[in-house]
């Protein structure tokens, strides 16, 4: 069988050192901190899966994409959902094709056993993400996205695959990975994962980017936004994230909002600009109502003051968050 191989863990390229990963990440448009780069580096160097947790919209999935691009290997993605079962994740038989073959075989004098071997062979096998990752010709990045949404039985099954890198298909036999994939798991923490799975992984918590990092992201991804505007946007977002909102805006929202402001030729943040574009920033009606209140003027004024006084943004934002009266 073509899957069989004794050379488990063939040559695995590493990315060199952590600074190179940082560079590779930023070339791919991802602005990562050194902590993220360290975890990626170690996940590759130690051959251990990386479990990434964090709020929605902080770019967890991006990390796997970038990882595959920097390793110049393929990304195979398994999106988890409630009710995901082994068939969908691992393999299925191509029933239509099998039916046709049975028809064709009717006239031949092959024995039953021969016919059976024919239709339960490699060419009738539909590889789903896990099997595709195991049998890939070069170690791919396997992204298991939102593992918290799959149920516990699936998690147990996954744990087995992750530890043995082999699986058996009754009709074919055992299939063993020739190249152990790099695994990235993400979770939004809607369900507690088992300790066994956690202990198999390196852990990385991704938070919202701080002011400076977010500035860098906006400047790079929305180059049409002036430095002043980007500064205002990021400072304002930082304040918004401290509010008690239904849905806290992530990096994607920052970028959408910046693009919206630029498209409407807004040079600076004021009430009118925010009212016009609030749909890109906040997607929950109650949140929008909260932001539109009198809080908005106070927040904008505080940001203006901080800017005029030339106070550092980190300390300024902390002070404003502390002193500004939150909206109701």
């Amino acid at each position: 069988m073509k899957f069989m191989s004794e050379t488990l863990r063939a040559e695995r390229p590493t990315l060199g050192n952590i600074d190179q990963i940082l560079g590779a990440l930023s070339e791919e448009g991802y602005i990562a901190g050194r902590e993220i780069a360290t975890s990626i580096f170690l996940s590759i160097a130690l051959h251990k899966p990386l479990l990434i947790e964090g709020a929605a919209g902080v770019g967890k999935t991006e990390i796997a994409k970038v990882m595959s691009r920097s390793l110049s290997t393929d990304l195979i993605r398994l999106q988890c959902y409630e009710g995901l079962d082994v068939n969908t994740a691992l393999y299925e038989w191509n029933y239509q094709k099998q039916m046709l073959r049975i028809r064709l075989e009717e006239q031949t004098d092959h024995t039953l056993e021969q016919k059976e071997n024919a239709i339960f062979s490699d060419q009738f096998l539909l590889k789903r993400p896990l099997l595709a990752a195991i049998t890939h010709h070069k170690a791919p990045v396997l992204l298991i996205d939102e593992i918290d949404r799959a149920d516990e039985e699936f998690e147990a099954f996954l744990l087995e695959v992750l530890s043995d890198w082999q699986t058996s298909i009754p009709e074919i036999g055992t299939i063993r990975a020739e190249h152990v994939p790099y695994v990235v798991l993400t979770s939004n923490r809607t369900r507690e994962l088992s300790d066994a799975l956690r202990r198999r992984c390196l852990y990385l918590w991704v938070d919202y980017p701080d002011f400076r990092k977010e500035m860098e992201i906006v400047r790079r991804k929305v180059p049409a936004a002036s430095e002043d505007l980007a500064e205002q946007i990021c400072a304002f977002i930082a304040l918004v994230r401290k509010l008690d909102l239904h849905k806290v805006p992530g990096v994607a929202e920052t970028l959408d909002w910046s693009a919206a402001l630029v498209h409407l030729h807004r040079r600076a943040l004021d009430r009118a600009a925010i009212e016009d574009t609030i749909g890109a920033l906040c997607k929950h009606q109650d949140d929008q109502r909260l932001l539109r209140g009198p809080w908005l003027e106070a927040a904008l004024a505080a940001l203006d003051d901080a800017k005029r006084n030339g106070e550092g943004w980190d300390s300024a934002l902390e002070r404003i968050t502390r002193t500004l009266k939150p909206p109701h």
Partner: protein
Amino acid sequence: MRRTDFGDLTQNVTEFGRLLRARGVLCGPREVLDALRALRVVDFYDPDLFRYTLRTTLSHRVEDLKIFDAAYGAYWAPPAPAPERTDEDGGERPQETEGDAPAEADVAVQQWTNAEQQPEGEQEVPGYSEQEALSNKDFSTFQDEDLDRIAALVVEIAKRIATRLSRSMRRAKRSHRIDMRRTMRLHLRWGGDLPELAFRKRRIRKTRVVLLCDVSGSMDVYSRFLIQFVYALQDAIGRVESFVFSTSLTRVTPALRTRTLRAALDRLARTVPNWSGGTKIGRSFRDFVDHHAHLLDPHTVVIVVSDGWDTGEAEVLSEAMREIQERVARVVWLNPLLGSPGYQPLTRGMQAALPYIDVFASAHNLDSLKDLEKVLVAQAAKLARGGRR
């Protein structure tokens, strides 16, 4: 800033790993080994990289990170501490050791949860007469020394319910799905057109229970029993998600999964903010709807344990209740005060919530727990048939 030759480093990292473990981080020899392997490939003279490396290898959940950061600051402090580190380690954790002998009730829960289903003949409940004597006594009137015995009885009742529940599920799972793989084999054997279809059994979908327990002031004692009760049920009725609330909402499912339930409850009482302050039911439920909405589906039974004393705005509560009821199979509200003679649910909070409650019951004594049994059994049977409400 620290001793850097690898021999010492090995020892220090091991010791640091033990310190984390003592503070509740899931960190054992495997993690320490990973950390040491990792330190061989990163430049550990770089203080940031050193810290990131330990963080990613020695921690497994976001809760660990806070503990990690505190411990890191203390252990790898800039001026290299004196060589005898071990006392410091031992002295750090007087009250946090896991060594508490499990109370009787916890043993009962564990034995039961671990045990396979027993044959039906052996359903005798030990101490039945004792149970009868206690069964209509209000939980809050028990003395401390009674609590363990009561807890054991609560588990006993849960066990009987669980047996009945799983039986009703078995009866109901009648529908099937086509098993394509086996169909193909049959097809092959007989050739020609589609042969008989092979079926496979449908996976049964278990009911999920979401427990929202009021732990403010006088509700504390009831909540403890209810958490224990539902915890003991979870093998039979599928997943149980538990939350406690007073002025804010806290998810306690992971904490309750620890092997010593009683220790877990005690720890909760210490760590959950405002374990007995005023109550903001509406805000807590709002928070629940917003952040745990995925738990709300037609296979879910939500059980609220509260006396309905809400100090927040009534509309917030009624709005959240409405959203919850819309999405789930059933909302059960257990109010222990309902057991007191002459009680009328007149508080503003209770009034706001009432329109959105499917089952309003008391849960103040063992008898009323048995009533709860009926509700849950009926619900499970209905869900297994695929119906709603």
